[in-house]
């Protein structure tokens, strides 16, 4: 059934994009309980910076690398100037700061770059690959590979490294983290750098498929957020699976139910899942003993 296959391939392509955005959320969330609403802006910046470097004559790989570093730096600066000074603020205030940051970054981007849409060539051409009568673009494979790679790296980071544990410890109990010798400011800086770098990577991988422009961030951030919640916030496995599932739900409902209401169908599925599993598919069930 080539139709079904096409729907799934489409869903996986889109889902991998969501997964990458969702993966970007996990680190900052794990370090601080903050959902960083500027994550979409990191994605946007990754694409935009690469576009402009590429247009200025840089080879694509170099442009991409510079973009990732630049966006990671942006993340560090954001943390240093906006999050760290407010470190005692309640989580909601921090979230509002990230919303402010996203507006700010968008504003800067539209002035430094422009308000047009942009694209650069796909990494491995545009010749579709045929799978069981359905087609997928080589660039989609890049996005999928990127998502899987980032997932693996994050998963190892959080389960196998002491630094990863330090990140988790910081959000879990900042006071105790300091008492055991964790430089929580450094952990936050690291988290913002990594999250931003992952965002930038996402932006670079997806631009040949979805294009980029100064205002693509918000919608991506919301979808990524929804995907992360579906999977269970803070868990890389959740981000990957949540992203892919969300993409596939959308594609299947666009294909079989109604393309007009595909986002609605996807959200209803999320609601249904959360109804049965209030912590998402892989979320931790917290045991707050009393």
């Amino acid at each position: 059934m080539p139709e079904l296959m096409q729907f799934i391939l489409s869903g996986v392509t889109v889902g991998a994009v969501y997964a990458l955005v969702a993966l970007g959320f996990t680190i900052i969330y794990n370090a601080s309980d903050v959902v960083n609403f500027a994550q979409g802006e990191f994605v946007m910046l990754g694409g935009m910076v690469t576009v402009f470097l590429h247009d200025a004559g840089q080879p694509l790989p170099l442009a991409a690398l510079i973009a990732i570093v630049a966006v990671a730096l942006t993340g560090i600066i954001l943390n240093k100037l906006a999050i760290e000074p407010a470190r005692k603020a309640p989580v909601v205030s921090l979230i509002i700061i990230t919303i402010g940051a996203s507006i700010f970054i968008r504003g800067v981007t539209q002035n430094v770059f422009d308000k047009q849409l942009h694209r650069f060539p796909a990494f491995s051409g545009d010749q579709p690959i045929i799978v069981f009568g359905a087609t997928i673009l080589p660039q989609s494979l890049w996005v999928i590979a990127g998502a899987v790679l980032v997932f693996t790296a994050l998963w190892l980071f959080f389960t196998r490294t002491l630094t990863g544990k330090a990140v988790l410890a910081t959000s879990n109990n900042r006071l105790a983290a300091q008492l055991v010798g964790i430089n929580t400011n450094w952990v936050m800086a690291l988290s913002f750098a990594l999250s931003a770098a992952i965002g930038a990577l996402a932006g670079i991988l997806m631009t040949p498929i979805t294009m980029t422009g100064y205002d693509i961030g918000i919608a991506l951030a919301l979808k990524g957020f929804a995907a992360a919640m579906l999977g269970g916030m803070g868990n890389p496995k959740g981000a990957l699976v949540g992203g892919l599932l969300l993409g596939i739900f959308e594609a299947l409902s666009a294909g079989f139910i109604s393309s007009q209401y595909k986002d609605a169908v996807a959200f209803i599925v999320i609601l249904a899942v959360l109804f049965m599993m209030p912590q998402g598919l892989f979320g931790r069930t917290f045991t707050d003993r009393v």
Partner: protein
Amino acid sequence: MLTVEGLRSRYGRIEVLHGVDLTVHSGEIVTVVGANGAGKTTLLRCLSGVQPVSAGAITFRGEALDRVPAYKRIGRGLAQSPEGRQIFTNLSVEENLRLGAFLFRDERVASDMDDAFAMFPILREKRNLVAGGLSGGQLQMLAIARALMGRPSCLLLDEPSMGLAPILVAQIFDVVRNLKALGVTVLLVEQNAYGALSIADRGYVMETGRIAMEGPAAELIADPKIREAYLGI
């Protein structure tokens, strides 16, 4: 080893430490006792750097601590088992202990952890479980064990016996005595004043943010005022 001079600290506009002076010599066990709200916890929080100091000086091994951020103090040898346990509830027991030795990446970490498990066997049983599921007393054991993982030269204990079964309370006091034998200095805040004074070298009595009395532990334990006000004898 540790000296505190004229220490003042406030929460918002309310000052709760009004100039505390205190000295802990190397290798000593010093205990601080006092009523609820006297400021004992606040004092320890100042020492470990998580509470802003508004005036006064803290010197540790001859070095002023005012500019040393909290996370660096454990590296200098100052570890704390805080009030309210402050465990990483989403991490496993073992991860909690491992993070206690965050600064160390050598083999001794494993043997320290074995020592911790030997001291509190229940923690070994629960090593792979999420710490949030522990009972109150088990959390207390974990907090103490985690502080020890940091290889302190000076250990700050905030009510270590709280919530522990009597058999363990006795054990905790033994542990403190053993630490002393190993050369670790201990500053012990306790509500079980009798127990604390029994093992301490010297003691301080805190009343509403001030040191009201100080002296060798044996003298304090014999002091009729203290017996009446804190020991309930």
